[in-house]
């Protein structure tokens, strides 16, 4: 059935997350933009408590979380809206502040990889910590200095089996939240490494490296254009020894299959719509701010008029609104498909492409339209322009996601289109 009726539970998520965004994020958004690499403990601790009270969440919808222990009441069977709830949370918290949202100790990208590729035992072991005593932050490390989206085929980080352990060697860059995952909290990073360098992408597997593991060090803190409340780091693995069980997936993962690559792709199918949702939060914040500003100057947007009678400003705002709403619906559809257990590879990349375009266009237009006020650091618009751009880059650039969409619609593989 085609329906746009928001489920009550999602409406509650909106309300709750908006409260958090308004009270815990917006007031400190400028401060953490000015003080890159300071840790927003107040937000992190608050979110940790809130997450515990809500029974966990993050990138792991209830339907994917570890099963409850025997004897416990089974969870009530409701409609499956887990991924929709995550997308709404990502949108609203990014409306608050994207950088802070990325510091949420609720299980983000690392948890998404565990969810997409881990066994039930591994989900239990790695995901329950998000509702433990202390806040825990997770991360995922795929990119290397020579390769980003082409990484699975070009991976240089290696994992060699040695008895009951794996020994990891290599360097990862651009790890979002890596410092908080490995140093500031007892978290973990999912590292993508090869167990057979000659096998190309077929040899790639995800491994969990926990905070405090000898041989794993954070080597560089990046200084960025935006999302400064979130850290981005390089990680060096030097004879880093982890338990055998920390390889994510079935016990037979050692076979030469493309399971590892598929795991990375499955992770992206879940994470790309979340990035898109996050982008939409920034875009919505911007559009709302623009409309409020215009209203304060006595300018009302006259919807419904023929285009020939609109002012340029009205046209710009209306175009922004078309872009924002239609893109949000794409995002919503791509997460709805996750909840419905439908393959969403195409839709995930579609929503990512358009969300990256939309948020960049909307934030840049907003800064342009408001003149000196838009450009000024007195408002958050210039910050949102800087924050926006990351959405067109991480989890696959706009170009890589166009490539994925193009291959899908043309029914092409790597041989035909690269």
């Amino acid at each position, binding site marked *: 059935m*085609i329906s746009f009726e928001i489920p009550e539970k999602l409406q509650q998520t909106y309300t709750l997350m908006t409260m958090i965004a308004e009270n815990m994020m917006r007031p400190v958004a400028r401060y953490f933009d000015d003080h890159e690499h300071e840790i927003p403990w107040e937000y992190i601790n608050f979110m940790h408590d809130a997450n515990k009270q809500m029974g966990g969440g993050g990138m792991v919808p209830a339907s994917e979380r570890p099963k409850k222990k025997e004897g416990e009441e089974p969870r009530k069977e409701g*409609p499956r809206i887990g991924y929709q709830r995550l997308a709404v949370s990502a949108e609203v918290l990014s409306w608050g502040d994207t950088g802070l949202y990325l510091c949420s100790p609720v299980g983000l990208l690392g948890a998404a990889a565990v969810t997409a590729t881990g066994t039930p035992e591994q989900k239990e072991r790695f995901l329950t910590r998000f509702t433990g005593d202390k806040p825990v932050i997770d991360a995922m490390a795929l990119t290397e200095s020579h390769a980003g989206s082409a990484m699975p085929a070009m991976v240089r980080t290696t994992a060699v089996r040695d008895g009951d352990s794996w020994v990891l060697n290599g360097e990862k860059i651009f790890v979002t939240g890596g410092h908080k995952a490995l140093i500031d909290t007892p978290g973990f990073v999912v590292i993508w490494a090869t167990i057979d360098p000659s096998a190309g992408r077929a040899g790639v597997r995800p491994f969990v490296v926990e905070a405090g593991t000898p041989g794993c060090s954070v080597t560089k803190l990046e200084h960025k254009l935006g999302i400064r409340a979130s850290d981005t780091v390089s990680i060096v693995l030097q004879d880093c020894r982890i338990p055998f069980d920390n390889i994510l997936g079935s016990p037979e993962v050692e076979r030469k299959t493309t399971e590892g690559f598929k795991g990375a792709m499955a992770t992206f199918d879940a994470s790309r719509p979340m990035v898109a949702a996050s982008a939409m939060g920034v875009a919505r914040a911007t559009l709302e701010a623009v409309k409020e500003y215009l209203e304060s100057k006595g300018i009302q947007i006259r919807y419904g008029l023929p285009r020939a009678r609109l002012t340029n400003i009205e046209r710009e705002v209306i175009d922004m609104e078309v872009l924002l709403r*239609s893109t949000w*619906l794409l995002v919503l559809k791509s997460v709805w498909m996750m909840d419905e257990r439908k393959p969403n590879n195409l839709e995930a990349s579609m929503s990512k492409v358009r969300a990256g375009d939309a948020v960049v266009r909307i934030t840049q237009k907003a800064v342009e339209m408001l003149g000196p006020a838009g450009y000024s650091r007195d408002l958050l618009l210039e910050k949102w322009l800087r924050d926006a751009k990351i959405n067109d880059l991480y989890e696959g650039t706009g170009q890589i996601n166009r490539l994925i969409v193009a291959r899908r619609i043309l029914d092409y593989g790597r041989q035909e289109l690269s």
Partner: protein
Amino acid sequence: MYGFEPTDEQKMLIDTVQKYATKELREAAHDADEAGGFPPEILRHGWELGVLQASVPEAYGGFGERSAVTGVLAAEELAWGDLAGAMAIMMPGAFALAVLVAGTEEQRKQWLPGIVEADWKPFVPAITEPQFDFGLDDLRTTAERQNGGYVLNGEKCMVPFADTAEAFLVFARLDDRPQAFIVPRGADGLTVGDRDYYLGLGALPTHKLQLQKVKVPTADRLGGEDGFDPAPLAAAGNTAAAALAVGMSRASYQYALAYAKDREVFDVPIAQKQSIAFGLAEMAIEIEAIRLLVWEAAWRLDAGLDAAKEAYLALTGAADMAMMVTDRAVQYLGGHGYIREHPVERWMRNGRGVALFSGLAMV
């Protein structure tokens, strides 16, 4: 709950309409565009699909209930076949649904069975006016009260099938708001002008219509003495127009995609070049995004919610999408795209018309 999948019933309807669009509309579209109209049997077959009939309750000669969502799904498929053809088939529906939604009980009983139970007959709305900044809120055609009835004066353009129309639903300004009046053909003071010719939509014959002191009894004012609220009708019209744009754009996109996989340059299909492949990807994304806006507006209409803004945004986005997609389709066919043997140039000409459609169709 959110949902993004048509019901089984809707899928069956889409399937039926798609078959007709493929076998009849698409096949006849080129010649119809050149000749200035579709053969009557093509329109009759389209009418017999029963899309309108399924939207009208039994009491008025139909066998269903109005659903804007079902309407946009059908409209998209029809326009995939041909935009002008889709509009021609839907035109009596625009008249009928306006009467259904905004008419009095007497008006419904008087007009609907005659439209719904009969073969396709041109009952048509007369909305658009020639001024460049035409809008429903600023009609130059006026209605004035006189002797317990109304008198209409003004000029309309793009009135479909005006030369053969059974009756017109004429929109005119009354007390500073748009209202509609049913005017039978041959009414005193009504002059059907020569046929209009436009950049596109060659297969949809339209005319200018002059109204000089055309008298209309109160019983023929849509909604009776109190009239009606034009906002929901306008929203339904914008939504339908946007749905048509989605269908036509999808046709262009699919045609360009198939061509790009076939046409070679430097020994590989041009689709293997990123400049083409990425462009096609953007077309697909644009169509899908705007389609969802259309669906949302339609869903709001069905849910009885205010859909004015959503429908307006949907049509605004659809008009831009239509030009973006149809222009690219011509571009990707290169010189061949400019030749009338391929349909993409027709779709591009039709695409420019979308922005003018507001109110010409209904779901």
